[in-house]
């Protein structure tokens, strides 16, 4: 059977089952780029917490830029190759974009690279207009974060399309790659909410509400879209694993603040706090989804998964936060319960070892109720997104 794709050209049905050879190395290259940008972002935040003095050429910036370039240039090459010299298999596994052809994920990576490039002059102006990075979350940093996030999403789409087309051992290998990139996807959200998840905030309803907006979406989507039995668990595990390895590694390196005022004389790179315990609710989401998906409506499934997420997350995060904040046994290199930025005053440091005062029980219950609503809504969107992801083929 022949299928008309472009006027004047025909493709054989066999092409549909053939993985385009260019796609595999490209998926790995872009996944590596996604690792680079996320490691670079982590390193950059640590740099700002410990050394402070910034330039275009800090090692952390170079790693982020390398990630952006690997993703952008490899995707650009794939687009040119597919458009002008592509085999029939490559062209048939691509989507059109302003007259060019490339896999869908490649276009997202190129867009991300463009957003990162756009953020550079914008951020430079911002620093000169309002001062250097008074806040992490600023408009130009949001453009940069969108660019970085797009590289991770592009990697996810590329690997997802290959996973969805592949069979046998290759399918399992690609499913593992999807889950690993899924871990970076989760890490993106986790890093972006750093300022809302400081350890003394971990008993607050705002923290739970923010977590419930973001992570049920990510975990439900990945659970449904990954071809592993425990896809969300694998991604959450990858997220926690990467965060822990970075936390334990980075803090081994000596560092001295190069900006003042210095209120804490940190002698080593300061790493981000212990990652959120997302692997526990991920186990619950994978287990429940496999039993209920297809047997109940998406709305019912979302309600069950949202509630399960919040319950499972609170059960582990709440007591762990108590340990991290209050227990001196957490104040060591392993648990990192005593990480401080060099500009934190002693009063602020003392403040990080006690929780923000709790509201009344009624206000707290209302706040957690809102978090539950967010979790259910987020799960529903995640499930719908996961279904779309299973359909990605190019």
């Amino acid at each position, binding site marked *: 059977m022949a299928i008309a794709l472009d006027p004047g050209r025909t493709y054989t049905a066999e092409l549909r089952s*053939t993985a385009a050879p260019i796609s595999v190395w490209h998926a790995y290259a872009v996944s590596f780029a996604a690792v680079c940008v996320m490691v670079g972002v982590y390193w950059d935040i640590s740099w700002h917490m410990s050394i402070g003095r910034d330039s275009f050429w800090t090692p952390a910036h170079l790693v982020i830029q390398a990630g952006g370039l690997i993703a952008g240039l490899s995707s650009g090459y794939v687009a040119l190759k597919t458009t002008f010299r592509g085999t029939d298999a490559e062209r048939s596994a691509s989507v059109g974009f302003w007259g060019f052809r490339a896999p869908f994920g490649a*276009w997202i990576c190129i867009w991300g690279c463009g957003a990162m490039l756009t953020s550079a002059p914008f951020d430079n102006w911002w620093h000169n*207009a309002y001062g250097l990075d008074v806040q992490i979350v600023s408009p130009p940093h949001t453009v940069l974060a969108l660019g970085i996030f797009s590289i991770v999403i592009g990697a996810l789409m590329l690997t997802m*399309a290959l996973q969805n*087309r592949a069979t046998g051992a290759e399918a399992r290998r690609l499913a593992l790659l999807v889950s690993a990139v899924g871990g970076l996807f989760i890490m993106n959200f986790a890093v972006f909410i750093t300022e809302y998840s400081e350890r003394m905030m971990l008993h607050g309803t705002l923290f739970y509400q923010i977590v419930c907006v973001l992570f049920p979406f990510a975990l439900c989507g990945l659970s449904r879209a990954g071809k592993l039995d425990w896809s969300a668990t694998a991604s959450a595990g990858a997220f926690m694993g990467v965060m822990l390895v970075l936390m334990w590694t980075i803090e081994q390196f000596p560092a001295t603040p190069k900006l003042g005022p210095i209120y804490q004389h940190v002698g080593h790179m300061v790493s981000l706090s212990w990652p959120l315990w997302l692997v526990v609710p991920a186990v619950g989401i994978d287990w429940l989804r496999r039993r209920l998906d297809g047997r109940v409506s998406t709305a019912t499934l979302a309600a069950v998964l949202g509630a399960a997420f919040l319950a499972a997350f609170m059960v582990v995060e709440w007591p762990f936060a108590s340990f991290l904040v209050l227990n001196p046994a957490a104040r060591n290199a392993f648990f990192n319960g005593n990480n401080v930025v060099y500009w934190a005053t002693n009063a602020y440091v003392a403040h990080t070892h006690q929780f923000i005062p709790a509201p009344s029980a009624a206000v707290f219950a209302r706040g957690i109720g809102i978090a539950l609503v967010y979790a259910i809504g987020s799960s529903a969107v995640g499930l719908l997104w996961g279904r*779309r992801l299973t359909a990605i083929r190019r």
Partner: protein
Amino acid sequence: MSKRWSILAVGAIAVVASAHVGSPNVIFDGNAGPYPVRVVVRPPMVVPGRAEVIVQLRNGVDPTVKHVMIRPVFWRAGVAGAPVGDEAAPVPTARATYSGLLWLMAAGAYSVYVTVQGTRGAGTAVVPVMSFATGRLGFSPGLAILLALLGLVLVAALLTLVYAAVAESQLAPGEPLTPARRRRARIATAVALPAIALILFGGAKWWQSVDAEYQRTLYSTPKPTIEIRSAGGQNVLDMSTLDPTDRISALIPDHGKIMHLFLISRDGAGTFAHLHPTQLDSTNFRLTLPPLPAGAYRLFADVTTENATSLTLTSAVTLPQGMPGAAAGDSDDAWTTSASVPQIAPNAAAALGDGFSLAWTGAADSLRAGETTDLRFTVRDANGPVNRLEPYLGMAAHAVVMRDDGSVFIHLHPMGTISSATQAVFALRDRGDTTRTGHLPSADVTAAQQMADMPLGGTFAIPYEFPKPGRYRIWVQVKPKGRVLTGTFDVVVR
């Protein structure tokens, strides 16, 4: 977003700065141990931002000098909380000159510690610098166009991505795009367009709120409340410095006075008064006015807080007709009315009274904005240059520079633009004599103001950088023989 850019494209907003009005650059002539130095600090417009620091060895090229280190010290954190210093690099185009950039990360009182190391040992000069955001950079048209174009491309590409996500991305390789799927993709793109517009609108609102918050934190001169009344045959000026932003904490004396108040007539009458109110309590001051002509005056009042902040308070006052004059409330008070004011030029001289005159002995060339200049004068009597001046408020000379529109005002000395009281506060802080919540005894501050090596010859130079071109008036106050005399010059700065 492009509308936002057009709003921002109006250009940099110039706002007055701290221990002075509109003249943020700091110049210090003094010693770093055995090495005489001139230090120029040009603070950034924004905080956090980078200050340019220039260190010049005043005796010229000195082969004994090995390193010049510069270090930013925030008052609250002290030397213990300062980052390690940077080495200032020699400037290839200037003799015996070194420069570097220092990050000022917080708003408030800083000092740049300049340490000169050499075979004659090491010495440090403390140069106080006020760190406040004073303006916001505008958008250049080129940058605005570039960002607008990049933004448009990103939005167009995002819409294409939405279309591709719904259309081809979900097709198996080789599978054709059906009209139904194409229609779905178009609907998705049509829905995405207003969604993206909404996100951009939200982004613009966010930007506006950040900008508004930033504008709120920009430095503005504190405005005291002034009341002038007649009481017991005297003119009394009452001032309240209660400041809603709480910048004016406990004050310390500078040159022995808790406040230096200047009244400068606005109507071209040429009246200038340098007066010293009495402090009644932490925020209230009282001044017995000398016999000044009626009319409108600009009021500037310099104060120094014990956390090393120098501030100039500004106001406008009108002295009514028929108010009786009174003797000076403070023996260091001085005032003058100049009928004719000479322009600064070679051999120009201003009459001082008591048989003295003040001659301009500085550069013959016209003065330029943004360049460090020595305002050089010689006090003369009938026999020529005088050999020695008496100290007036601990200094050989005081100068006040004001632009004719009042947008620049600063009180200068031969040591430069800095307040020696803030320098003393930093020295005491380093010694551990004060804490963030402690109080400094006034006597300690006065004692710590270093005057020992100050030259008191009849010829002196006052270093300054005019911040912008315009017409300026300079009042120079000296005490050649028992009485404070004031000489006045006009100058056009290019």
